[in-house]
């Protein structure tokens, strides 16, 4: 594309992506609407779906709306590489918090529901 007038792309593309984002968001929402995961008691499928829709949506926003797709690689990599260290942080913190939680369970006799508590459960009784 001729970049001397900046990022210019056919309007139709934007409408397309716009529509797509609606569809993806609807997908995310339906995960909850149908209580995916809560119904069967295992959350893996729910988490996987959440992540898939999240990355799809984020990807489209960044790539098309923020025009990153059309930028030169030098910029793309400069923006995408540094957050890699955050993955290290997130991974280690997940590990760390599990460990802390475990010592709480073992020594403080606490234990926690793998499934979230529903407010309805306690609301009626207080």
């Amino acid at each position, binding site marked *: 594309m001729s970049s001397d007038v900046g990022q210019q792309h056919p309007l139709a593309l934007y409408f397309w992506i716009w529509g797509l984002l609606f569809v993806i968001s609807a997908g995310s929402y339906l995960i*909850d609407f149908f209580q995916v995961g809560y119904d069967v008691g295992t959350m893996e499928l729910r988490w996987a779906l959440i992540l898939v*829709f999240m990355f799809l949506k984020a990807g489209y926003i960044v790539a098309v709306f*923020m025009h990153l797709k059309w930028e030169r*690689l030098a910029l793309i990599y400069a923006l995408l590489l540094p957050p890699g260290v955050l993955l290290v942080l*997130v991974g280690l*913190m997940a590990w760390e918090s599990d460990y802390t939680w475990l010592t709480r369970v073992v020594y403080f006799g606490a234990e926690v529901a793998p499934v*979230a508590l529903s*407010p309805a459960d306690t609301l009626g009784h207080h």
Partner: protein
Amino acid sequence: MAEATAESTGLKSIAEDWSSDITTFKGVPWGKAMMWIFLLSDTFIFSIFLTSYMTVRATTAEAWPNPSEVFSLTLFGTTVPLLLIAIMTFDLITSSGTMALAVNYGYRRDKKKAVIFMLATAFFGAVFVGMQAFEWTKLIQEGVRPWGNDWGAAQFGSCFFMITGFHGLHVSAGVVYLIIISYRVWRGYYDNTNFEIVEITGLYWHFVDLVWVFIFAFFYLW
């Protein structure tokens, strides 16, 4: 044109761009480069908010209230989970779409349409903030506080108010920013540029939407 010198693609283009003189990001105006770098820094801020949320949620031995129910709305007698949040999500996407159009019209030098769509974006942003205020009010009435709630871990409220609050501040700032820029565009401050200012504003706005994608996934759905 600066980029005329660097037409190669792929990894080679990275090496060439980084080893060229004057500019590293070819064809990227100063303001846009600065906005991107700022957004990178802001990404770290929000990521660390979310990481902290993950950590406290996984560390606490208290049960975590179920957001699906906490944020449900009762409409015509039926309880719909996360309804308001869904509406807010769609509202933000809509604003992202109008913003993208504004950028496009800006580069087409269609000042009038650019301004109209920017103001539309600001409008949807304001609506979002309004809905958020409603949501906060509802939760506060139901007894959720940053330091505790009736349903489980206190961190539920802490994280909720902190993260959505910080995001809401970003949206509010974005609304103000949009209004100022559209005023200036309208008054002709940028007439002898390519209107990349609209794109820069757009970057910020899309970023705010982007953050919401992650908050929605991790806080409301997880």
